[in-house]
């Protein structure tokens, strides 16, 4: 499978779907099929990405830097796989849950997928921005899905706050170009290794803030609870499960890969931000009564854990960050989808994902948290290890308080065959990885293997 495959498929599909009325069943299935195809194409790239040389090409065969280089290393592939899978699951859920109510929903989800795949595959800073904007714009348009006043409110907040984030990001990219004279990430790495270590600090700071907005960690998270609460459940799943991946991927790509020297200097700051997010999210989740708000704060904790993992010296912390991001993405999707429904089955799926979020085995989340704990203890960072333990206990409390609310038993349509299949598939994936963690551990370990060095 050539590298452009998973990029082209959602793109063309999105363009075609733009014509069609997404409320029709066959259109939705077409979109689902397309995303599934993207997933397969991405999976096809796995052996190549794990080969000696990551697949790459430069558009139009122009010299590197003039053309845009696309490159799929392990980090890109694992993020693309998980994000596409999450999108696919959410789209299927929305379709089988009672039909899509907006004409453009499937097309926008597919565009979101195209944007995400592009973000993960590109090796050019400005191209990253463009794909980022594609994903964001699709998300902006999706945020109002449902079109009830509360949805619109959420969409408005989401758009305005994230526009600020996008502007920060654009500014950072431009500054990168002005400072290094190139947009190609590998060339920037080379420049950074040869050039002055402090020159990249300013764009680095802006990037941190921009991705902070996407990922939603303290103090950039204030939009998240309102948006996750008031947007539709499917949309919340998309935003928290798929879109937030841009934030974690961006931090890994720009922080670890492109500007490791800046990351090294930012460690104390990341430590503080991570600890603050963990504490803030865990404590605030405790007293919330709206399940989705609980989940929103739990995702702030999760973001904090990722940041804390990045703040650790050495490779283990970075591996933990990858694992946390991947497991967290599936957790969030499953949680947001499961809480939408009432009844016993939905509760079961919810509890699996909640255990995963709290880091209770045998779930994928356990391994990611275990990794963070391991990295923290390895570095002798007992304070962080303590925080991880505390966060686990508090999120267990908060998530299961929500789980035990009376409303759960009575309200909401029960999961039926279709929706149940989606939610169960996500939960089962979490358990399967929990029982056989090798794929997650390999993904985490190999994804950061080649980062920060030139191939």
């Amino acid at each position, binding site marked *: 499978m050539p590298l452009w495959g998973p990029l082209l498929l959602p793109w063309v599909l999105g363009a075609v779907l733009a014509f069609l009325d997404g409320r029709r069943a066959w259109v939705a299935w077409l979109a689902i099929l397309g995303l599934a195809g993207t997933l397969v194409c991405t999976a096809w790239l796995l052996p190549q990405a794990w080969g000696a040389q990551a697949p790459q090409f430069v558009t139009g065969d122009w010299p590197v830097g003039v053309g845009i280089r696309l490159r799929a290393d392990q980090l890109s592939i694992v993020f693309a796989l998980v994000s596409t899978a999450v999108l696919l699951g959410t789209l299927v859920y929305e379709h089988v849950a009672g039909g899509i109510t907006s004409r453009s929903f499937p097309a926008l989800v597919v565009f979101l997928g195209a944007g995400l795949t592009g973000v993960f595959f590109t090796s050019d800073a*400005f191209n990253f921005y*463009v794909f980022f*904007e594609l994903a964001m*714009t699709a998300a*902006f*348009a999706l945020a*109002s899905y449902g*079109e*009830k*006043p*509360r949805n*619109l*409110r959420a*969409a*408005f*907040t989401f*758009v*305005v706050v994230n*526009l*600020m984030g*996008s*502007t920060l990001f*654009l*500014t950072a990219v*431009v500054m990168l*170009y*002005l400072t290094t004279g190139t*947009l190609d990430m590998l060339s920037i790495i080379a420049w950074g290794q040869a050039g002055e270590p402090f020159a990249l600090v300013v764009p680095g700071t802006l990037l941190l803030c921009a991705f902070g907005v996407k990922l939603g960690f303290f103090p950039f998270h204030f939009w998240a609870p*309102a948006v996750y*609460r*008031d947007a539709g459940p499917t949309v919340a799943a998309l935003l928290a499960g798929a879109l937030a991946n841009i934030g974690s991927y961006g931090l890994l790509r720009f922080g670890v890969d492109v500007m490791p020297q800046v990351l090294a200097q930012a460690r104390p700051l990341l430590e503080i931000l991570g600890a603050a997010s963990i504490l803030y999210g865990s404590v605030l989740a405790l007293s919330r*009564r*709206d399940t989705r708000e609980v989940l929103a704060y739990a995702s702030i904790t999760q973001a904090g854990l990722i940041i804390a993992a990045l703040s650790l010296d050495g490779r283990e912390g970075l591996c933990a960050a990858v694992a946390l991001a991947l497991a967290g993405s599936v957790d969030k999707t499953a949680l947001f989808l499961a809480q939408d429904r009432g009844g016993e089955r939905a509760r079961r799926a919810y509890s699996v994902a909640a255990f995963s979020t709290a880091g209770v085995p045998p779930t994928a989340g356990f391994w990611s948290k275990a990794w963070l704990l391991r990295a923290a203890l390895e570095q002798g960072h007992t304070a962080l290890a303590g925080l991880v333990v505390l966060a686990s206990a508090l999120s267990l409390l908060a998530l299961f308080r929500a789980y035990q*609310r009376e*409303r759960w038993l009575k309200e909401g349509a029960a999961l039926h065959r279709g929706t149940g299949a989606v939610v169960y598939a996500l939960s089962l994936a979490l358990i399967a990885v929990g029982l056989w963690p090798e794929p997650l551990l390999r993904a985490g370990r190999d994804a950061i293997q080649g980062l920060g060095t030139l191939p």
Partner: protein
Amino acid sequence: MILIASLVVGLLFACGVRMVLERELVRVACGTVLITNSSVLLILAGSFPVRGEALSVQKGWPVTDPVLQSLALTAIVIGFAVSALLLTLVHRTQRAHGSLRTDRLVEAELKRVHAVEKEEGH
């Protein structure tokens, strides 16, 4: 020139932020436009020190950095598209809430939150 350009960028940005922090939807939208403008200006400001004639491909003739120009163009277009979306959102939001003020949005939000909490009760 560097100082002047960055001063103007800062000023536009400050005005934009000031507008976004207004309590009214239309002004918020206007603010985002100003902020986009400021970042486009920053992009092209990078070419102020060495600029030339864009259409010349003669060797040795100074040319305003074409990559910067194309970045600026892309940024303008994306900004335009997103702003158009934002405008329609402003329209829908004000129609749904019967007001242009952002505090009304917050009030509606709080009302819902309190309703949920009351319903849960102890």
